């Protein structure tokens, strides 16, 4: 990590600790969005940080990964990832409004293609003022009033379906699908980083808990069964973090990467972002699953934070598609370049 990146980490770690965190997540239910914290985040300029330097941003994907991990560590109920990815797409297509750049208007991404005129289960669907959606080979900008009411869901996310009536076409043909795909790969990378943050916090809070919770006259963290259940997690966390950072590194490079499945040499962005989402997702499931379990009955109670992390891990790891389907997309990428169909 460069000195600049360490600063980014410090600044955002402090911001999300002070302005968001589990209390903010609880208070923002059932909408799943903390409007006050978003206003403060907008004051820092963060909503526009992902666009190019001349447009007022300059953050690389590797920089944004740091922000996303810190947001995940505090399960911030803020659409920073979707918004930043949307601004990068809109800037590419000369469709970036100043109010979106500043965060006054919220932007998001319909991560799954439109079907029958509806973008379904959009992760920022209930709050986004501007929504980018792919309808066959047309890239649309949905700009009607958001419903401000979320579909009740597992991860307390601002999910809603959105129709495409009145949407403007901002790109068509190959350009539309390519720009969308690039944006979706960035989204996968950043959501993976968010999941890595969830994993990190789950490990930390569970380790703290098992050091304090006493049974049979000892901290439960002194029992080997619990130690070994926890000891598997730091390697998975580090592995996921390395993989996500590698994906961002690949995404920031200007040269085309390599896919060599049989030699285990992979530097292709699309491939690495897909791998990241699958692996960071699974890792977060395991970390929150063990974490909740070692909290005992309290972990299941609403009062404790681990259940918030548990549910968000499941939500973000499968909101795009089922992990098995993501594996099939990944297999297509891996096998195509090896002369296998």
């Amino acid at each position, binding site marked *: 990590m460069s000195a600049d990146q360490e600063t980014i980490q410090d600044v955002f770690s402090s911001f999300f600790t002070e302005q968001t965190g589990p209390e903010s997540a609880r208070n923002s239910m059932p909408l799943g969005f903390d409007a006050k914290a978003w206003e403060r985040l907008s004051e820092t300029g963060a909503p526009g940080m992902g666009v190019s330097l001349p447009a007022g941003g300059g953050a690389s994907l590797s920089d944004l990964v740091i922000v996303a991990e810190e947001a995940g560590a505090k399960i911030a109920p803020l659409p920073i990832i979707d918004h930043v990815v949307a601004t990068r797409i809109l800037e590419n297509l000369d469709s970036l409004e100043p109010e979106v750049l500043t965060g006054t208007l919220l932007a998001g991404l319909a991560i799954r293609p439109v079907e029958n005129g509806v973008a379904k289960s959009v992760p920022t669907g209930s709050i986004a003022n501007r929504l980018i959606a792919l309808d066959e080979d047309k890239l649309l900008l949905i700009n009607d009033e958001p419903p401000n009411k979320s579909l009740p869901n597992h991860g307390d996310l601002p999910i809603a379906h959105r129709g495409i009536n009145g949407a403007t076409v901002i790109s068509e043909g190959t350009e539309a699908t390519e720009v969308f795909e690039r944006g979706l790969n960035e989204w996968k990378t950043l959501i993976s980083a968010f999941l890595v943050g969830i994993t990190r916090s789950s*490990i930390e809070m569970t*380790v703290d808990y*098992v*050091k304090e919770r006493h049974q049979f006259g000892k*901290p439960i*963290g*002194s*029992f*080997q069964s619990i*130690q*070994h259940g*926890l*000891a*598997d997690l*730091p*390697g*998975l966390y*580090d*592995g*996921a973090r*390395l*993989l996500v*950072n*590698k994906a961002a*590194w*690949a995404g920031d490079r200007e040269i085309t990467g390599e896919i060599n*499945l*049989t*030699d*285990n040499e*992979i*530097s292709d962005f699309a491939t*690495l972002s897909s*791998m990241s989402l*699958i*692996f960071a997702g699974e890792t977060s499931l395991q970390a929150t699953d063990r974490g909740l379990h070692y909290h005992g009955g309290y972990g299941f109670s609403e009062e404790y934070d681990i259940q918030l992390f548990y549910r968000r891990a499941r939500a973000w790891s499968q909101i795009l598609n089922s992990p*098995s389907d993501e*594996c*099939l997309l*990944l*297999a*297509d990428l*891996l*096998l195509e370049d*090896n002369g*296998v*169909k």
Partner: protein
Amino acid sequence: MDFELSQKAIDFRSQVKKFISENLTSEITLKMHETGTFNDKSFNESLAAEGLLAGAVPGYGDRDPVELYLLFNELEKAGAPYDGLAVTMLVAGVINAVGTEFHREEVLNKLLTGKHNCCLGYSEPDYGSDVASIITKAEKIENRWVINGQKMWTTMAHESDWVLLLTRTNSDVPKHKGMTMFLVPMNTPGIEIQPVATMASERTNATFYDNVEVEDQWRLGEIDDGWSVMGVALALERGVMGGTNPAVPLLKHVLNWAETTPSENKSLMIDNALMRERIARTAIINQVGQLLTLRAAWIAATGGMPGVEGSMAKIYASEEYQKVVGWFQQMAGAEGLLSFGAEDAAASGWIDYDARHAPVTTIYGGTSEINRNNIAERHLGLPRNR
């Protein structure tokens, strides 16, 4: 950590890849599986002649740990015989760190020619993970030591010129403080080697030491300080010298098989959705194994001791390898049980071989449990419970 390798490292890797493509013949691989000895002295000698072996000694010369990792990773991916080489170079690294001028001249310089091997004599029949309790005894009589006892899992003893032998020299102090390390020439009278066959093709040994006499100059490190020498060996070994990408060659064999094997409805195994999902998951496991290993090497290259990070890489790679082997063996059905040389064996018998080999990988070089203790205590700060 930098995902872009340095130009020096890239050049080194190209040199290794070229060497492997020119020198690793199918005869070598076949012989290794037929004999169960995953060591080939002429291959090692050629590596030395190419100037690649000195780089394989951790901490020696101008090769850094990233290049050490690259060398063993390439050998592992190619399915080359490197088990004997890894142990030998590990011992070379220990000598380089704590050995005397005599050890360097008599042993290290010879190891660097590729013509000689070393083996490890730590475990005993009754003491494996609890290695600090070993009872093989060394008694000092004037300037000589007399050694009596037995070691288990002395793999490559039958190929070796020396054994790195951990002995009990003091029983009146806490067990960690009463051990001494020796480099014992294998041709010393009183040493007997008995082969131990395993469920995979690889051979290991039990070794017996009956009044084995060596001069004090064969002692490595201080008297009663053998535990520190062990610590040096473990720090050099963990995660960097192979064993963290075992599913890479397996996946290659599985792909060759899946691309030519019929599945349901006249399609091929490679078109089967579950097969494709598992190939994708294996590719992720291989990437993560590589990244965790490279990270451990990176820490070592920048002056750190990647003890905990090595444990993470080792647990992850070995446990996932077992999972992957299980997936593909089951997917291959009856043909996944057929061995090398059998008609219709899935992946020419490689699936059966890997399924036989995988169980040992979470046992040797520190069991998963010992590595989990290491992470729980040293990384998570949980209380020691033994």
